[in-house]
Every structure is written in C-alpha cells, then in structure tokens.
C-alpha cells in the first residue's frame, strides 16, 4: 500500500442500500449496527434488516452460517430497508453466494479476497472462483484483502494474529465509513467504550478501522466516495431503536403512565428474548422481571402480579403463545388486565425461529377454547412498537382484559431513527381501583361485587388484595353477573358470554377512526395491511403513484375490535387488496365480517415483502378496475 493520497471525487447521492454479510462469527450484526448508528447520528433517515439464518452456530464458511445485515440510508424519509442492496460487503465466499442473488444488477461488491481460497470456495459450494471465472461480470467488484491488511495493521498492538484477524469487520466498517463519508470519531469512541478493559482488542479494532478508512482514501481502486445528506426529518430529538427495545420501553412508559409497578413474567425465545433482556436492565425504573420455568409459568406469574395490582406483562413468540393460551382464557374470565406480546416468527412448530411471519393473527383471535374474545393490537414499524404497547396497556387496564400485541421478528430486530415522543402527549392511564363496597344487600349491609360493570366500558370494578372490606373470591368457573359467585345457571352463562364479547366490541368506541391514505381521492383500489408490512406497502403505494396511478392505503393497528369506520371505508372501493406474510388471515377476517371479496397477496417465506412486489400486485388490481 502506498501512502501517497490520490484524489477521489465525493459524489452526492440521495440513498443507498448496503448489505454486510459474513460468517456468524464475523460480527456482521455489530458492524451493521455501528454503521447504522453513525448514519443515524449523522442525520440520515434509515431502516435496517438484520437477517441471521439459524439459531445455532454453523461451521465457519458454510452457507448455513451466513449472517447478514442490510441498511438503507437516505437523505429523505424512507419506509423499508430496501428491496435489493446496491452494495454488498461479503467477508467470504459463502456470504457472497448466499446474497448475490439479491444485489441489484450492476451493483457494487466489496469482497474480502483473502477469504477466497480453495477450501472456502468448496465449503461455500463454488466449483470455480467467482472472482476469476467471470460470473460476477455484471457487477462492480472490489477485491480487498481485508484479512491480511487487518493483521498487518494490528501487528503492533500485541494481539496474536488469530485474534487480530477478528478485527476484520472493523476494517470493512472503516472502508465503508470512508465510502459514505461517515464521521470517524463516533465509532472510535464507541470502540473504546464497548471494549473497555480489553486494551488489546480496542487497539486492534481501532487500527483495523483506521486501516480500512485509509485504504479507501489511498488505494487507487475507488474512484468515488459518496455523501448522503442528512434527511429532512421532522424536527426533534431522535434515537435509533429496534422494535424489541421500543416494546420494552413502551411497557415501562405504560408503567409510568398508569402508576403501576411493572412485572414481566417471561421465558426466553427467539426473537422475543431481547424484550426480556432490555426490561431486566431496568430495575432502576422499578421494573421487576422474572425468567420463569416455562411460558405457562411466565404468563401465570404475570397474571398473579396483575391480580395484585401490578402491570402484568408476558412476552413470547409462536410456540410460547400456544402454551399461554389456557392462561389467557383464565385472564379473560377473571377480567384482569394483562399484556401479552407475541413477536411472531415463521411456523408451524419450531419453524424458522429467526424469520418473520404474520401467521399468528388467527391464533390471537381464536387460539383458546370457548368464547374468549381478546383485543389485539399490531405494531407497524420498530418505533411504533412503543406507542402500540402503550395503547395495548391502555386497553388492558381500562377494560380489565388481556390484550395481545403482535409484532414480529422483522420489527423486533430492525431499527429506525425514532423521534422521542413528547411525554406530555401521552394521557395518563386511569386505573381506578375499587375501594368501597358497591352492592347493597337486601338487609341493608353493603359488600363488594367484583363483576359490577361500568355502564360505558363494561369494565368490571376491580379491587386488589390489601384493600380492607373488599375481600372476594374469583376464578375460572362461570360467574354470576354482578356478584361474581360461581354460577351454573344457563341464562347467566349466555349473558356473561355476551357481556364479555360486548365489552371487547365496545373498545371500538375508544380507538381512533381508521385513516386512509388516498392522496388524490381517485383510487378505486384499496390496499389494507397490518403490522410490519407497513413500510413495504407504503413504499409500493408510493411507486404506484409515482407511476401516475391512484391507489388508497389503510394500515391497521387495531385488529380486534376493528375500527368502527372500516366497513364504510371498504365499501368505498372497488377492489380490496390485502398483502400479508401469511396465507391470508386478515383477508379471511375481512371477508367474514364485511362480505367483501378481499384479494390476498401472500408471502410466507420468512422475509418481508419488497416494495416492488406490492407495486406489481397493486398494478394488477388497477388493471382489473372497471
């Protein structure tokens, strides 16, 4: 490497989609995270999509072991992590092979050429070396000997070559930081902080990072570096947040807003565990967390805490939801507030634990024996997990009911710049514990009837242990309306089933009317989505409009009950398209409720829709408009 500096042009671009890919052990998630954070601080809008393949560590160098992190950065507001990367950073042949199919044609490949030896090529299943066999002709390929340069750079740090080698992700990060004109200092500080106490590691990471940066600047192979201006985001203070973190914070916020102690009972499961991890760190916020022996105990403890007047929360993913269903039914019967967060993953059974799917909606609606309706909320973006959580808790407490919040593996791990909400804008959540007897007996004495209801909300009056004079017994057997005593009476059961259903339906009165994004009012096709497909659908809609067509978009957050104006909205359109990452679950709900011939667009591949896929589907609908 020469030390003479050649001049490169810095070109201004409006957006770029990068994907870092390497072995599970190569630190790609960390690299991606760090690049994201410095871009966020720089002021770009962004969206990320971490995609690690398996729950286990596969043998180094195999396709099964490839871990990738995609980030989309832009100088304007964007909605998705991007359909196809413009740039792929591939740390070894397997990473190249597993990801090349997604890269835009003519895209940029930055490969760690040191890793393209015979053995690695074979492991990845390459018969010939793609760097020389011409198979990459359609791309702009930069071969960078990252491993050797990293070892070289770190040779004075005292790190053994084997350890030094592990800094090569920082070399890549340095190089890409240079390419996209990211500030260096943030990252250097961050390294110092993160590896505090491990001086050799800090030193070799810093050296590698700087070497990567310098390589971009000096090596004469890069003709351009780029700058992506800060985006014109809404003014405010921002932080970069994942869906799991936002949900955890939402829980804490709901605790503050309601004045209730927060108790999480949970059992680890991918991709929900990080909510447990995050909340476990927050003891200074008064949060109590409990890793239970299983999912049943997790929700059981949360319900016990709720009975005692805490904000009971449980978090899980599909298989854990199955196990919680009996206790959710008990919570329905006890009419106690409880928040259940289901971070959906691809099923059935163990399925694809690290992949996202929206296939638990019908389970959330119907996954319990008997008639046991529960409200369901779905989060749309990583940041929206915060609000959605608070809304779920509001409903749970106000209506004394378990509420299921659906997020998914994509929201859970993806991040976006999130504008810190104005705390003042959140309404307090009124709990209104009952403290006085509410029933007069024929003999004039008074006592507490736990199943007397508020006339508006139909919520029952709720007294918690510790309140003198309010002692009472409740359970999972059917209860007499009002008194709550065990009742086997036929008519009473019918009435209670009806009251429980009405109470949930009545929630529709307290939720916002559904908004429709129908820019020009000319649309005949309505796209209805829910949950994490928001970005892809909105981006698809933008594309359709950019092409001169009209289309309307409605994105649901309240899945049960549905917003009261939804039927009216639907009836305005000729065609209804429902894109979902399942085989058509919301679609079947809409069909049953509104007898609308909703068309499903389904994708059940563990990965999000691309904006282009949505665009295509909308365009075919538009073609069929009469």
């Amino acid at each position, binding site marked *: 490497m020469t030390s003479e500096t050649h001049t490169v042009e810095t070109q201004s671009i409006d957006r770029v989609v990068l994907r870092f890919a390497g072995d599970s052990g190569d630190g790609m998630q960390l690299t991606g995270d760090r690049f994201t954070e410095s871009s966020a601080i720089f002021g770009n809008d962004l969206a990320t999509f971490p995609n690690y393949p398996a729950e286990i560590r596969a043998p180094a160098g195999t396709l099964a072991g490839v871990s990738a992190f995609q980030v989309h950065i832009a100088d304007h507001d964007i909605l998705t992590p991007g359909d196809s990367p413009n740039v792929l950073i591939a740390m070894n042949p397997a990473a190249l092979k597993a990801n090349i199919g997604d890269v835009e044609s003519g895209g940029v490949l930055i490969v760690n050429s040191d890793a393209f030896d015979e053995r690695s090529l074979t492991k990845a299943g390459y018969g010939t070396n793609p760097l020389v066999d011409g198979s990459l002709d359609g791309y702009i390929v930069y071969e960078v000997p990252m491993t050797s340069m990293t070892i070289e750079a770190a040779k004075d740090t005292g790190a053994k070559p084997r350890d030094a080698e592990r800094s090569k992700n920082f070399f890549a990060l340095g190089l890409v930081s240079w390419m996209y004109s990211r500030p260096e200092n943030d990252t250097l500080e961050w390294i110092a902080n993160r590896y505090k106490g491990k001086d050799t590691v800090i030193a070799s990471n810093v050296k590698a990072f700087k070497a990567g940066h310098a390589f971009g600047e000096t090596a004469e192979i890069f003709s351009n570096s780029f700058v992506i201006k800060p985006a014109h985001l809404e003014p405010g203070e921002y932080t970069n947040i994942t869906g799991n973190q936002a949900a955890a914070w939402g829980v804490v916020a709901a605790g503050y807003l309601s004045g209730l102690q927060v108790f999480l009972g949970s059992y680890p499961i991918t991709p929900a565990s990080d909510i447990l991890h995050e909340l476990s760190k927050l003891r200074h916020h008064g949060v109590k967390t409990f890793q239970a022996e299983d999912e049943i105990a997790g929700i059981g*403890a949360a319900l016990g805490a709720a009975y005692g007047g805490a904000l009971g929360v449980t978090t899980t993913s599909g298989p854990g939801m199955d196990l919680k269903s009996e206790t959710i039914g008990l919570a329905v019967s006890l009419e106690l507030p409880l928040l259940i967060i289901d971070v959906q993953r691809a099923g059935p059974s163990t399925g694809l634990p690290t992949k996202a799917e929206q296939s638990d909606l019908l389970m959330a609606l119907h996954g319990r024996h008997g008639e046991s309706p529960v409200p369901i909320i779905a989060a749309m973006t990583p940041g929206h997990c915060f609000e959605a959580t608070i809304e779920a808790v509001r409903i749970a407490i106000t209506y004394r009911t378990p509420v299921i919040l659906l997020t998914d593996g994509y929201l859970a791990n993806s991040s976006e710049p999130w504008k810190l909400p104005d705390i003042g804008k959140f309404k307090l959540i009124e709990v209104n514990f009952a403290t006085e007897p509410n029933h007069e007996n024929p003999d004039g004495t008074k006592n507490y009837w736990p199943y007397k209801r508020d006339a508006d909300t139909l919520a029952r009056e709720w007294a918690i242990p510790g309140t003198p004079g309010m002692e009472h017994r409740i359970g999972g057997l059917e209860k007499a309306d009002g008194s709550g005593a065990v009742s086997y009476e036929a008519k009473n059961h019918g009435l209670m089933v009806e009251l429980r259903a009405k109470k949930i339906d009545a929630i529709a009165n307290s939720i916002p009317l559904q908004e429709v994004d129908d820019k020009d009012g000319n649309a005949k096709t309505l796209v209805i989505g829910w949950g994490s497909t928001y970005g892809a659908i909105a981006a698809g809609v933008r594309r359709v409009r950019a092409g001169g067509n009209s289309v309307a978009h409605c994105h649901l957050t309240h899945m049960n009950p549905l917003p009261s104006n939804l039927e009216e909205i639907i009836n305005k359109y000729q065609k209804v398209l429902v894109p979902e990452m399942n085989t058509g679950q919301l679609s079947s709900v809409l069909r049953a409720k509104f007898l609308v011939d909703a068309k499903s667009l389904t994708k059940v591949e563990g990965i999000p829709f691309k904006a282009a896929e949505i665009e295509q589907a909308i365009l075919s609908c538009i073609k069929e408009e009469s």
Partner: protein
Amino acid sequence: MTKLDQSSSSGANGSVPVTTKKDWTSDQEVRWCPGCGDYSILTAVQMLLPELNVKRENTVFVSGIGCSARFPYYMNTYGVHSIHGRAPAFATGLSATRPDLDVWVITGDGDALSIGGNHLIHCLRRNINVTILLFNNQIYGLTKGQYSPTSELGKVTKSTPFGSVVSPFNPVSLALGAEASFVARTHDMDRKHMMETFRRAHDHKGASFVEIYQNCNVFNDGAFSQILAKDARGDNLIPLVHGQEITFGENKGVYMTSSGSLVIAKKGSAPHGSNLLVHDEHHMDPSLAFALSRLANGPYSPTPIGVFRDVERPEFGSELANQVVDAKESRGKGSLEKLLHSGVTWKVD
C-alpha cells in the same frame, strides 16, 4: 382515582383487629362430600388464622383445580381459584410484587404433583414466599376417581382397571430434592398438629411445603387408615420434634446405622453401632431429612410427621425488591424522561 401504596406492609405494621374463626369464614356454602377430610383442614386453617396476627385483607388463598381447590371460596379473604396446576406460578407473580401479602397456595396431589409438578419444584427451588398446603388424598377427587401420582402401585381406579403399574412420588422426598427450605407433613385427623404445622409453615420466610394426608371418603376411603386409624397411630406416626430424639410408639426409635442407613428399632435392640437420631430441622444439608422421608414408602408403615426441614435461604421476592432498591440507588431513580434519553440521541431541527 385511588392509588394504593403497595409497598407499605400494612399487614406487619398496622394494628391487627382481633378476629375469630367466624371472621375468616365466607358466606359460601361448603360443597365437599359429607365426611370429606377437606372439612377438618378448612377448620384448622380458619381456627389458626385468628392466632397469626394477620389481616384478612392481606391474606390471599390461591388454588388450582380439584376438590381441594374450592378451598379459597370458603375463606373470607382474597382468593383465586385459578387453573389446574398453575397456582404456584400465579402465586409467584403475586408474592414477588406484593411482599405485604400473605399468600397461601392450596393444591391437591393431582394439581401439585401431576400437571403442576414443574411449577411446584421451581417454586420451592426459588423459595417464593408462599405457604403451600398439599391435600394428598392419593386420588383425583374432582374428576371422580382416577389414580394420582401418589396412588400406590397396583391401585385400581377408573383409569387403571387392571391396577396402576407405576410407583408413586413421595412428596416430601420430591420437595427435598427440589431444594425446599421448609418441608412438613401432617394429617386431617389431628387438628392440633395441623394448626401447629401450618403456623410453622406460615411463619417460615420463603416457600413452605406441607403435605397433608387427607381422606377422600368417596373415591379413596381409608387410604391412610393403616397409619391413621385411632389405634394405629401410636405405632405408625413418628413425630418429628426439633432437637429431640426421634422416638415413637412403645419404645421405638429411628437409628442411624454405622453404614449410614436409617432403621426403625426398639430401644435396646437397635443394630450394633447405631445411634438414636436427634432431629435437626435446621441442618443445611437436607440429606437426613431426606432419609427420614424414606422410612416409609407411603402411609402403610411407620411414617414421620411434623417438620422435616426448616432452613433459611434467600427468598425470591425480597431479593428482587432489593435489586430494585439497589439499582435506584446506584443508577438513580428512573423516569420516563430518563428512559427515553438512555440511548444515543441526536437532534434534528
């Protein structure tokens, strides 16, 4: 809107009104079969509570499903009749968030040891501050007579018309194997012994486990008669009393042999080199308590009753509460504002 201060332990501090059994009795008609052993357990609890210096409003009974699980309905306290096997889980969350409450768990041999076995052993291991009363009638009462995990080998029931082929659990052994800090056994024929045992269990900090031999006169009548019939008790109940030699009946005692096994023998005719055992509830090593639990393989031969083990170890709820206090001290009390700013933030104007 009224907010209750959940952290003040009104039970311990506030003055406790004088009560009688009647105050602890709810207005619900008791719905067990006439003659069921559950009645005497109920009475023992209702008679004990006025003596415990606790308040009704701070007392919660949590049960699963089973005949025994109807218990909370009959107590004029807070009560939850939850779902089958899950009472310990429910009680864990309640106890962990409301250290001011006295939480009792009422459960049956099916509820606690069949479907709920895992919650039970984890509750004991974690030393959750609850008092667990296991009504062991060696049968499923509520579902009308199937064998339970404590039914004896060979038991003929509706689900085992040819006799059960599996050995029962010994609930005391299981609890000790699960690290329980308080383990005791009593029976429904001796109100005084029950009351004394329940009192000890209640006063213990952490999880207390009491096995109660309870007669189901409809589906398993006489299950305990070999040791509990009036004239059998002397020779078949081995009372455990802390600090005292373990003796019973006519001159009989429990001896530790030189090879390390427990045997029952008449005084004087014990094996050479063996020692009459002195009961030590507070031994941190549960091995001797375990050995005592193996003296009888079911209620068919001389069986120890009383407190097998009572030791102190960290209790879950307090430890959790301490972490909250410590964290607030070391990191400063949190606020929503602080939470939102706890990551890296940047401003856009």
